[in-house]
């Protein structure tokens, strides 16, 4: 729909033979002549109000994302701590497999501390992606 002068949308041409506008042009003309243009002040006030609402909505979405991310991190960390013995055995196995270097780092990564750090970083990354529009 293109806009006419004053930002008013012109009436659409009939989209099909069944278009009611074509059936009763007098009532359609009455509708068109009853159009009231909006003042510039009214349009500016409308935009300002919408801007405030969008800001409020954006803040709410950020807060919701933060709460969700925090809840996810806490939940998964809790799960990790519950299964810590199993992870510790895995870490010991990794440490046993190699005495130094990358295997040590690997052992740390599969341990609770490594998992927690990875989750926090992953959560932060997810948060950034989710609020990319904000």
């Amino acid at each position: 729909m293109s806009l006419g002068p004053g930002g008013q949308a012109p009436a659409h041409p009939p989209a099909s033979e069944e278009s009611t506008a074509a059936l009763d042009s007098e009532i359609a003309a009455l509708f068109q002549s009853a159009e009231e243009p909006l003042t510039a002040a009214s349009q500016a006030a409308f935009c300002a109000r919408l801007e405030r609402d969008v800001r409020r909505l954006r803040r709410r979405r950020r807060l919701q994302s933060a709460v969700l991310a925090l809840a996810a991190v806490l939940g998964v960390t809790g799960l990790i701590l519950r299964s810590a013995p199993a992870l510790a055995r895995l870490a010991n196995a990794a440490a046993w497999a190699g005495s130094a270097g990358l295997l040590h780092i690997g052992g740390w990564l599969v341990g609770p501390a490594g998992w927690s750090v990875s989750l926090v970083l992953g959560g932060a990354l997810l948060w950034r992606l989710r609020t990319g529009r904000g």
Partner: protein
Amino acid sequence: MTLAGARPGLGQAAEAVVVALARSGDDAAFGELVRRRQAPLRSLLRRLCRDAALADDLAQEALLQAWQTLPSLRSPAAFGAWLRRLAVNTWLQHLRRRPERTAAPAPGTDSPPPLVSSAPGDPSPRLDLDAALAQLAPLCRTCVVLAYQEGMSHDEIAATTGLPLGTVKSHIRRGSGQLRARLQAYAPSPGGPLPAEAGTPVTGACA
């Protein structure tokens, strides 16, 4: 967000381009869309609900929804129809929350309220289209307004409102018949054209 100030160049850009920018999160582009579309959107909602303040509230709601769901819009060229559908759905949801009563004749009178009014300082009678529309049932009025003001076909109205095609046709037939009968009473001569064509000033003020 910069709805209040336009970015140079956006005002002359094709709407599909502006929509594509807004979809990617460009707030200035969304502001430009609001500037372009707010007048027809508010006009449509004012005609539907006959209350300027409520119409503006519903328009805000529809535009906020558009801001949130714009990334899901597949075709930028369909933005106008998509936004209009959001507005109509917002209106229909409002009707479901708060069913509206059709304007009825005052107790003790047989005839509906007069459809002509005079603006302050203007002695010439004006035909109040909104007062005539107020006498139609809300869904019937919605179909009539979409058909006559927006020039939509029956199929488009059915798709926009979610009503069955037969119901849309029936609403429009009945609504336009009632509207014509009521407005015809104010034509200058019996059987003559409606006042708008006869040169009588017409007001679009919300009831």
